């Protein structure tokens, strides 16, 4: 199937109502001379799940990694990313404070080769939490929030490497939320997992959005439809459409989105 040339300037991007947790303005990402995303301007509402969908290489993961400065030293990012009235895409920004507030979970579960308890306490200790009762509380809270507590509460001091893929990924989510961040970025968190683990992760996300703003990159359109409130469709580095998930999946207005959702290209 050959891919038709879509008009990349024809797009529909809304600004969601309510409080905005994070907003990007004309973000361009360059790998050397190659431009990966083009003038991405999106506003992510607070306490909602926003999904970024699109084919491989469409720039969605690249864009996600800008949001907590994980592209530092990897790619050049221009434009403004506003978080709490601060442009976080500036040199003098304290990235350590930023990443404490904007956590990230990656595609492949990447627990440290430490015990489950140490995995969760690692970052807390590095950020100066010393009180043992607080540390223990956070371990339980975050494991409960990630829906993992019941499965691991009796083996907190065994190696995290013994967990199954789905459990390890939920541990990584727990590890991120133990820092009590504002925003959670997830880069295809379920793509390496089986359907049951995926379902559990999705349940977890729906729970978490009471307290956190979530931005998730996913290959899986059903997943985007199931969990997200807003969806952005990326095509060749351009956002073609961004609106309520229900609208984008039932009434896509842009030809590229429609074709992608109905499986006519890929």
């Amino acid at each position, binding site marked *: 199937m050959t891919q038709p040339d879509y008009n990349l300037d024809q797009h529909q991007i809304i600004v969601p109502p309510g409080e905005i947790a994070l907003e990007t303005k004309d973000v361009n990402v360059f790998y050397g001379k190659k431009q990966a995303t083009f003038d991405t301007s999106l506003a992510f509402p607070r306490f909602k799940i926003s999904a970024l969908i699109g084919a491989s290489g469409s720039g969605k993961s690249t864009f996600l990694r800008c949001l907590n400065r994980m592209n530092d030293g990897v790619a050049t990012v221009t434009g403004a990313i506003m*978080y*709490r009235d*601060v442009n*976080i895409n500036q040199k*003098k*920004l*304290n990235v*350590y*404070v930023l990443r404490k*507030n904007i956590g990230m979970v990656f595609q492949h579960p990447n627990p440290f080769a430490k015990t489950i308890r140490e995995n969760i306490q690692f970052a807390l200790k590095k950020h100066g939490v010393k009180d043992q009762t607080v540390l223990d509380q956070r371990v339980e809270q975050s494991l409960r929030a990630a829906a993992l507590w019941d499965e691991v509460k009796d083996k907190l001091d065994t190696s995290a490497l013994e967990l199954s893929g789905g459990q390890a990924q939920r541990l990584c989510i727990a590890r991120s939320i133990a820092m009590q961040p504002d925003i959670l970025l997830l880069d295809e968190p379920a793509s390496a997992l089986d359907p049951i683990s995926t379902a559990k992760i999705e349940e977890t996300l729906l729970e978490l959005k009471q307290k956190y703003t979530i931005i998730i990159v996913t290959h899986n359109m059903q997943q985007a439809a199931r969990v997200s409130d807003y969806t952005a469709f990326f095509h060749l580095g351009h956002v073609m459409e961004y609106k309520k998930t229900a609208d984008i999946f039932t009434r896509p207005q842009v030809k590229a989105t429609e074709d992608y959702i109905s499986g006519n290209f890929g």
Partner: protein
Amino acid sequence: MNEIKEKLLKPSKETHQDQIGHLISLVCIGFIGILVVAILFFITTKGLATFTTNHVSVIDFFAKSDWSPSQKGPNGKPEVGALAMIVTSFAVTLLSAILATPFAIAMALFMTEIAPKRGQKILQPVIELLVGIPSVVYGFIGLMVLIPMVRTVFGGTGSGILPATIVLFVMVLPTITSMSVDALKAVPRDYRSAALSLGATRWQMMYKVVLRAATPGILTAMIFGMARAFGEALAVQMVIGNAVLMPTSLTSPTATLTSQLTTQMGNTIMGTLPNNALWTLALVLLVMSLVFNVIVKLIGKRSAFKK
């Protein structure tokens, strides 16, 4: 809300640590950088003095094999022709690397593919032991055992390229083996599964898939082995014969660049032609090690998969 805003823009303990760490590494790198440049500069100026101050012809240096920088030759000038040493250096290097590589690959395959457990247990310590033996001991064994043997079998003095090659073979073997092991280990496990799942025999899997994928790494191992052989001075000096003559056979006494340096460096006076000529030999060695490095870099670029 404003608290976070302030924190985001203010430097913290972590950012200070970053800056201090950055500074410390810059100072260390700067120091090493200056050191390297100083060494390069020193050897280059000293080495080129033979051609600039002593007016020895560059062509004569590389094309003639008469070496007597301290005496006037038949044409009224000291003779500074390094060809014999260059040829011998390359000969022992290439021969020992060619001889050692098949053994090294066999050992590496045994350790990674055939019997990883036994390989790790027995061969790994053996290799480490071979690395740990000082070169003077290798040279001593060469002098006491190899030379009499070569003398009995081939006649002559017994010293020359052949015993030097054998000594270097043992010395570069562990280098090439351990680096080949690393290269084979870096081949993804999936490659092996893929080959076996297609019905390949274990030998076909090793020979056609794993070894092919590891070829750049094994070539790199060879080059490192050659670099070691090229630079080895002491052990070679003890068995090569130390006569600056063009080798006529594998058992005729001759000299390498390094052996000539070690034997002569105490006998010359700084600033004179004999001394400058030795610096020129050092410069040739330096340039060759740079060449080896460049080759390794080029091979690395062509590597089939990222490590």
